[in-house]
C-alpha cells in the first residue's frame, strides 16, 4: 500500500509500522529503544510523529502505529521539535554525557538543562536488554520495581543462576551502559564470572562455556572457522576432490 510521509509517497507492507516503512525509504526518524531483532518496548518515545486522521492531527509513536492506506505522516513540526527537545533533555539527565544521546542532541541542536538533576548511571530504561535476554539469552534480567524506582537487574541483584554470559544485553544497549569485563581467561558480567570456551582445534575463543553449551549443545568445542574447515573436508572427501 501507499502512505505519505513528509509529502512523499512511500510504499509500505500491511503489517509495517510507520517507523519501519520510513526507515526502508531512508527517511530518518530518531529512536533509541527500537531494534528490529526484538519485540518493541515503545518506551523512549523519541520516534513520535504527527498523523492526520478525520481532519485532526494526532501525535503517535511511529514504532507502534501500523500503516493504513492513505495515511498522512509528518516527521518534522514545531510541536514535534519541542517534544523531541524535552525528551532528549530527559534522556540526557538519565545518561549524562552519553555519546549516543549527545549525538542526537547535536543533530537537533538541543542544549542540556542544568535544572534537570542527573541520575546515577547511564541506563535509559529502554528495556532492550531484557528483550534481548529473553530472545537470545536465558531470561536472567528483568525490570524490577515500578515508577521512578524502576531499574534493570538480576533477581536480588546477585549473580543469576541461569545467566550464560552471552552479553546480548550489552550488545543491544543503545547507551552501552552494561559493564562487560573481558580478559584472557573469561568474562565478568552482571556480577557473574565466566570462563571462555576455546576451540579444541585452533584455540580461538568461541564464547563462554555456558553460552556455547546453550547455543550448540555440543560437548566438543569447535569454532565456526574450524567447523567450516571440517565440513569442507567432509564434502571434499565425499566428492573425491581433496587437495
Amino acid at each position: 500500500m501507499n502512505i505519505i510521509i513528509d509529502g512523499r509517497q512511500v510504499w509500505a507492507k500491511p503489517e509495517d509500522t510507520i517507523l519501519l516503512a520510513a526507515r526502508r525509504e531512508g527517511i530518518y526518524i530518531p529512536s533509541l529503544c527500537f531494534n528490529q531483532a526484538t519485540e518493541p518496548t515503545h518506551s523512549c518515545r523519541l520516534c513520535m510523529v504527527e498523523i492526520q486522521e478525520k481532519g485532526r492531527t494526532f501525535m503517535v509513536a511511529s514504532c507502534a502505529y501500523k500503516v493504513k492506506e492513505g495515511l498522512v505522516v509528518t516527521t518534522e513540526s514545531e510541536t514535534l521539535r519541542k517534544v523531541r527537545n524535552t525528551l532528549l533533555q530527559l534522556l540526557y539527565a538519565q545518561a549524562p554525557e552519553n555519546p549516543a544521546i549527545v549525538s542526537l542532541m547535536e543533530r537537533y541542536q538541543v542544549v542540556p538543562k542544568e535544572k534537570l538533576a542527573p541520575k546515577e548511571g547511564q541506563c535509559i530504561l529502554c528495556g532492550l536488554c531484557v528483550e534481548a535476554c529473553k530472545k537470545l539469552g536465558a531470561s536472567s534480567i528483568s525490570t524490577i520495581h515500578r515508577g521512578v524506582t524502576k531499574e534493570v537487574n538480576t533477581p536480588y541483584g546477585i549473580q543469576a543462576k541461569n545467566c550464560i554470559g552471552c552479553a546480548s544485553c550489552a550488545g543491544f544497549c543503545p547507551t552501552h551502559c552494561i559493564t562487560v569485563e573481558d580478559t584472557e581467561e573469561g568474562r565478568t558480567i552482571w556480577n557473574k564470572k565466566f570462563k571462555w570456551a576455546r576451540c579444541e582445534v585452533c584455540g580461538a575463543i568461541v564464547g563462554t562455556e555456558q553460552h556455547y553449551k546453550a547455543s550448540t549443545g555440543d560437548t566438543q568445542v569447535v569454532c565456526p572457522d574450524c567447523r567450516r574447515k571440517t565440513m569442507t573436508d567432509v564434502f571434499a572427501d565425499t566428492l573425491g576432490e581433496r587437495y
Partner: protein
Amino acid sequence: MSKEILVCCGTGCLAKGSQFVVDEFREKLGERKDIRVISDVKKVGCNGFCENGPIVTILPDHITYYKVSPKDVEEILDSLEDTPVERLLYQDDQGKRVRSREENPFYAPQHKIALRHTGMIDPGNIEEYIKAGGYIGLQNALEASQDAVIRQVEISGIRGRGGGGFPTGKKWRSCLEVSSDMKYMLCNGDEGDPGAFMDRSIMEGDPHSVLEGLIIGAYAIGSRQGYLYIRDEYGLALHHMQRAIDDARKKGFLGKNILGSDFDFDCEIVRGGGAFVCGESSALMASIEGKVGEPRVKYIRSVVKGLFDQPTVLNNVETLANIPYILTHGGETFAKMGTKGSKGTKVFSLVGKVNRTGLVEVPMGITLRELVYQIGGGIPAGKAFKAVQTGGPSGGCIPESLLDLPIDFDTLKEKGSMMGSGGIIVMDETTCMVDLARYYVKFLSEESCGKCTPCREGLRHMLDILARICEGKGELEDLDLLEELAITATQASLCELGRTAANPVLSTLHYFRDEYEEHIVQKRCPAGACKELIRFTILEEACKGCGICAKHCPTSAITGELKKPYTIHQDVCIRCGNCKVKCPFGAIHVE
C-alpha cells in the same frame, strides 16, 4: 405492624463497630418476645454516609438512626411502636431533627440508580435481589437479540463511569462487530483513585447488580468467559462478589444455558496486586495474564485485540450496575435524566473539607455549588472554600469562580479537569495548592509503571521541582520548566496515566499561579501548610502559661515558666502542629 431493622455493614460502619450493634439487636430480640420483626436483623451494604455510622434504618417507617452504639439498642427497640429516639436522628441545617432520608439534606436530592439497592438489601442474599426486581433485566436481554440489547444501551447514552467516559453502547457494538470464537467480558473493580469509594460500596452492597450487568454485556457482545478484576485491598467486596457468583451459578444465572437459553457464560474473580496503574485497561489485562501491570500501546483497541489478544470489553463497576436498570426500564428512561452529553446519574464521593462527606448519586448536570453547599452542608469550622479536585490524580482543580459549573463529562474536561471515577475532594483555605500538586505527582511517580520516558522521568523532575518550591527553594524559571515537562508528558506518554499525569500540575498552575509565585518569591505558604515556610509562634497576650503545649511537644521545643507566656524555639521545632491543637486558649499562631 411488623418492623424490619436494617443495620449497615459496609466497611465504614463495620469499622465503627456495627457488627456489635447487630449482635446486640439479635441478643435483645431473642429476649424480647413483645416485639414483632419481619425477619432477623438485616445486615445491609454501605449507606454512603460513613462518618455518621453505624447507621440503622427501621422499616416500614423509614426512620434512620445515626452513630448508633450497642448501648442505644434497647432504647430503639422500646421506641419501635412509639416515637423515635430523638437524639439519634439526623439534625438538618436548621437544627431540626429529621426522621427519614427524604428529609435529610444529604440524601434528599439524591436519585439512586446505580445505588438503588445498596443499603437496602442484604448483599449476601440473592433472593432479596430477585425480590427487588433483580435479574429481570437479564431475562429481558435474553429474550431480545444482541443488537436490540445494545440498542437500549445506546439509547440510554450511558458513558463509562470509571473515568474514560466512553459511550458504553458504542464499545459493545464495536466488539459485537468483531467476529471471533473467543471474546472476554471484564469488570474493572480496581478502584484506585484516592478519595473514591463508590465501586467498593456497590460491590459490597449490591454485588448482583454488577454481575447481572456483566452477564448482559457478555450476551450482547457474544462472550462466554468473563473476569472481575477487584482490588486486593477490598476484602469485603471480594467476599460478597464471590458469594454472589456462587449463588448466581446455583440459580442458573451463570453457567451453561442461562435461564434456558442457548447462551453460556461463566466468570471468575481475579485479585489485584496493589497497583493503581492496573485500573488502566491494558495494564489490567496484562495483570490477568499473570504479568506485570504495564500498559501497552492501544492504537489497536481492546475491543479488537485485548485480553490474551482476543476481542475484549472492559466496563467499570458502576457502569455495569446501571445496565440491569436500563434493560428493565428501558434506555429512554435513563436518558431522561442528566445533560445532553452525559445521560443518567453519577455516584460522586464527596470528601475532604466538607461537613457532610459520603456517596452522593445525583443526575448529571448538578452544579458544584449544590453538591458542596446543599448536599455537603458547606465547609466546616467556618473556613473559606478554595477549590474542588475532580477526577483524582488524572483530574484537575476547579476554583470558586466555577462553582456554578454544571457537572458533566464535557464541562469538566473543558475546564482542565475530568470526571474520573467521580471523586470530589473539597478543599478550604488551609489546603496549599502547590502541596496538592506535589502530593498528586508523588502519588503518580510511585504508581506509574515506569516504562516510558516522558511519564517516569517527567514525574521524577516535576516532583523535584515541586518539592523545592514547597521548601522555599524555587525559582520563577521552575514554573516554565514545570509546564514544559507537563506538556511533554501529556503529548508523548504511552498510556492515559502518563497523558493525564500533568493535569493536577497544569490546572493548579492555571488557577492558582499566584500561590506558586508566593512560595517562590516571598518564600511564603499562604495556606499555612508547607512546613519549611511556616512558623509556629505563641501569642503573648493570649498565652496563660499553662504549659500544656510544652507537655505535648515531641521535640521539647517549648519552654517557659508557669503562669508566664511560653516560647517556641524555632531551631528545634519540627512544625508538627501538636501544640496548636492542644492549646485550650488558641494562643498558638501559624505564620
